[in-house]
């Protein structure tokens, strides 16, 4: 029994003291632990929003840098004139995710021709976020990974070489070799073949034109007119009364009135005459906008190629703004930070109008926030970035072209 006297437990006072200390210590430790969990949660939100901003801004900047490839500052003529429908561009989706389109901001050259510029601003055409309307932007560029098809001289109506093509006399189709990478792709270079809905840029000594592929078979691309499903932008307009159509880049034998291509520099042409040597490119129309409809409450920066499936790049966008520095920003016009085009100002007492073809630099403001509120700050985690992109294909200044 003696040994049991040495096994006495804690006294009640010892127990009380130790329990109290334990409670204080455990309380402090748990409080710290909870703070650590909250901070960890906020860190996750921060990493998430930054990753969103990084991926969205990087792609946007790259696309802007490469805008206008092959097209440069002149833009591409588009059908216009009596009876022609305006060329359209994508807009952010409407209620229920319905696809929306708006008319392109075309501009008329002094000679009367209508052009779609490499960069088309869309000031305030996006949804209103944080009390301010957002912008959209539409870019035209040439797919640099797609081999260029050319029409050989003399004309070959049934091309055999992979990169030869023949443009039908009415420009309703292009004939290609059955082995053309345009039709079968090129696995070595990871080139995807032409798809229905792709845009084709025709460029030759008479100018440029765009057509939309509405169907294809093993040796042809077809450009059907009035096909609203596959050509929602309405590039395939070739009416004889229109101007600026693909017929206007044909050879110019004599009759300048038949096709209405009687404005310079769009040369005249007669249906049936051949095209001069023409290079064919895959054109990509890229549109950036904020989509606040598909995921209500968490607007997304969205990239749309042609009329394809929208790609969501960055979540919970708070702001998307563009402004533009124009060609002679170094002059007295002070044409920098212009939000909408055309822009008219007075230079040395003369009214001067700038249009989208004069864009040299694009200033971007993109802002994102976290999906949920961070507990430590009881606010969203935000990250906004401003940057400027010099559009490489539009940066060169032609000081002798007084027309632009």
């Amino acid at each position, binding site marked *: *029994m003696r*040994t*049991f006297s*040495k*096994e006495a*437990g*804690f006294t009640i006072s*010892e127990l009380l*003291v*130790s329990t109290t*200390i*334990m409670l204080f*210590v455990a309380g*402090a*430790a748990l409080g*710290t*632990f909870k*703070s*650590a969990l909250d*901070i*960890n949660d906020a*860190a996750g939100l*921060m*990493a998430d929003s*930054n990753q969103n*901003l*990084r991926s969205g*801004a*990087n792609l946007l*900047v790259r696309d802007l*840098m490469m805008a206008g490839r092959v097209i440069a500052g002149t833009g591409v003529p588009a059908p216009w004139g009596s009876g022609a429908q305006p060329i359209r561009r994508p807009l952010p989706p409407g209620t229920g995710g319905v696809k929306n389109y708006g008319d392109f901001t075309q501009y008329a050259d002094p000679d009367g021709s209508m052009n779609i510029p490499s960069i088309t601003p869309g000031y305030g055409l996006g949804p209103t976020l*944080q*009390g*301010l309307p957002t912008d959209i932007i539409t870019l035209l560029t040439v797919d640099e990974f797609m081999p260029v098809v050319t029409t050989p001289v003399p004309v070959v109506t049934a091309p055999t070489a992979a990169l030869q093509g023949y443009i039908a006399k009415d420009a309703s189709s292009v004939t290609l070799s059955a082995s053309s990478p345009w039709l079968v792709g090129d696995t070595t270079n990871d080139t995807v073949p032409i798809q229905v809905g792709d845009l084709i840029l025709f460029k030759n000594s008479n100018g440029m034109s765009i057509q939309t592929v509405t169907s294809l078979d093993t040796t042809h691309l077809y450009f059907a007119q009035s096909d609203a499903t596959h050509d929602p932008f309405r590039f395939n307009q070739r009416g004889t009364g229109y101007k600026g159509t693909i017929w206007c880049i044909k050879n110019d034998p004599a009759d300048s009135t038949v096709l209405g291509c009687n404005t310079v520099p769009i040369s005249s042409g007669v249906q049936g005459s051949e095209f001069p040597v023409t290079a064919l490119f895959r054109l990509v129309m890229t549109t950036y906008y904020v989509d606040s409809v598909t995921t209500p409450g968490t607007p997304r920066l969205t990239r749309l190629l042609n009329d394809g499936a929208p790609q969501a790049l960055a979540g919970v966008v*708070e*702001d998307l703004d563009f402004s533009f*520095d124009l060609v002679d*920003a*170094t002059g007295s016009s002070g044409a*920098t930070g212009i939000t909408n085009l055309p822009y008219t100002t007075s230079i040395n007492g003369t009214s001067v109008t700038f249009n989208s073809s004069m864009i*040299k*630099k694009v200033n971007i*403001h993109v*802002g994102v926030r976290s999906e949920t509120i961070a507990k430590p700050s009881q*606010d*969203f985690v*935000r*990250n*906004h*970035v*401003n*940057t*400027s*992109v*010099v559009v*490489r294909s539009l*940066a*060169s*200044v032609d*000081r002798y072209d007084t027309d632009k």
Partner: protein
Amino acid sequence: MKPSTRSSERGFSLAETVIALGVLITGVLGAAGILAAGVRNLSSSPSDVIVTQKAAQAVEAVFAARDSHKFTWSQLRNVSDGGIFLDGPQSLKLPGPDGLVNTADDGAIETIDLPGRDGILQNADDQIVTLSQFTREIKITDVTGENGQLRSLVVTIIYYNGANKRTYTLSTFISAYS
């Protein structure tokens, strides 16, 4: 069973328990400290996104200076070499009338407008962040053996996250031909 064996089965004393708890808490707090350090590190990630864009912007500005033909090839150097780009680290300023950064006519230090707690942009609640903790250096040097037709272009951005200095460098080349 020998009752005496129980004498070696004593529980911990209060002092031992308190010391053990102290060690445990120190460990837990230490772990929390490491977590906090990790979060501090991560808190620079917004700046990381900004500097990548600002470095690319500077590189593109130099290319634009070449392509626009507003400047000669001999001007596309640092000031110390007879060019237009300022030597050494410069504050992250807006471009001046020449449209280029890190030149003599640069404007004010750049700011970023955040919508503030109310989530509305362009009102009194906005949080204006001035990018004063960043410096950017554009260094242009001839590449030897290229007859002066190729230059190395290095943009270095230094920024601080608390007391931690961080550096982002973007290196490329620029040719006289565009």
